[in-house]
């Protein structure tokens, strides 16, 4: 019985590969976009402009305060009402990118604020421009604080990508859901689904832990 089920599951491996591919692609695209936008938002938020920084803060709070599932539904069902046609994949990318950008913004803000003001003042006294100060003085030091939670955030992003199955995208979780309709062994099917995620996420979790230890150890040293 279990052997038959295993065979039946093995038979759907092209579907499983497609699902894994979809999960990886969704995560990767929104990871890259989210990181870029998140850094941009974080730098803007710590900049002097109160209006911009307040607006970003309010938006981040809205996103942190609502379930991701609700955000996906809002984007997927309401943007079309505003005249913006989009397919499930685009909606998923928008939702995931937005989520990642908001959380990464917070991480970057914490990192930038961790850099002692004396550093910024010294850079100012050396006649560095705003951009130079950010790029050559603040960000390199902030990275020590930013990097471990950033990698942790990537893990969260990959896991959150499973929620887009709710709008019908055939990602790894959705594949499990489809297969379990034919092979009535939820334990086995979702164990395998979980294994797929584990293989992608666990190395990242290990990396985050290593970074945390290393960055923690580097604390207090003069050079990065």
């Amino acid at each position, binding site marked *: 019985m279990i052997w038959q089920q295993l065979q039946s599951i093995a038979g759907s491996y092209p579907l499983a590969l497609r699902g894994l591919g979809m999960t990886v692609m969704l995560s990767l695209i929104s990871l890259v976009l989210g990181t870029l936008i998140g850094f941009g938002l974080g730098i803007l938020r710590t900049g002097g402009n109160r209006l911009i920084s307040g607006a970003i803060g309010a938006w981040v709070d809205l996103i942190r305060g609502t*379930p991701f599932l609700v955000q996906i539904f809002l984007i997927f069902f309401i943007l079309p009402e505003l005249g913006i046609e989009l397919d499930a994949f685009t909606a998923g990318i928008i939702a995931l990118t937005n989520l990642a950008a908001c959380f990464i913004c917070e991480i970057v803000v914490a990192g930038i604020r961790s850099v002692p003001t004396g550093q910024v003042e010294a850079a100012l006294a050396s006649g560095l421009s705003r951009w130079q100060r950010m790029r050559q003085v603040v960000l390199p030091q902030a990275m020590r604080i930013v990097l471990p939670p950033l990698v942790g955030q990537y893990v969260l992003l990959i896991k959150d990508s499973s929620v887009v199955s709710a709008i019908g995208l055939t990602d790894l979780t959705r594949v499990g859901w489809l297969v379990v309709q034919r092979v009535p062994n939820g*334990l086995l099917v979702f164990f395998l689904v979980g294994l797929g995620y584990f293989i992608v996420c666990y190395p990242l979790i290990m990396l985050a832990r290593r970074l945390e230890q290393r960055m923690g150890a580097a604390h207090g040293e003069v050079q990065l």
Partner: protein
Amino acid sequence: MLENFSFRTIVEYLPLFGQGLVTTVWLSVLSFAGALAVGIGLAAMNLQRGRLFRIPAKAYIDAVRATPLLAQLYFLYFGLPRLGIILPELVVGILALSLNSGAYVAEIIRAGILSIPRGQVEAGVASGMTYVQRMRLVILPQAFKVTIPPLLGQAIVLVKDSALLSLIAVAELTRAGQLLASDRFMPAEGFITIAAFYLLLYYGLKGLAALSGRWLGLAGART
């Protein structure tokens, strides 16, 4: 555009939203209690010196942290009947949330206990305290303070995660929004309203976290 946004329909569906909100709140409270129980158990196992307890606890925590909640939820939802265990969706949902959040709670508690300087333990030993006395009188009271803010953070995550239970047809807040969206083809009214309710819960818990932080700060003795 959204010029047809119908507040009247929202008011009409308000009892449904109210029920959903209440369900979300109490199932979150139950799940958080479950998560605390699971987390304390796992943390206790994880802090043992012997591998017999430590390795399974670590494996469990890693497995939960490296897989999505939705897959865990489906694992229980489709898997438990296979073992002959037939439970209502609501119970499966609470179980999944407890088991999931429990892994994160365990890490928070462990970090809290490990944050107590070794000197404190040594002083306890030197004073002739037993292991239980050291835990009860020295470590836990201090660890308790450190863990409250991250635990409230985890509670916020749990409330948001509970939205996923709508996908196994638990009649909570998100489900109420889905019903309005599909009954009347009014996704804007449905989902914007539930988003507002979730924000209410979020700001409530966030305020509580800030308050507890201040209270703990005032209580002093931060290590």
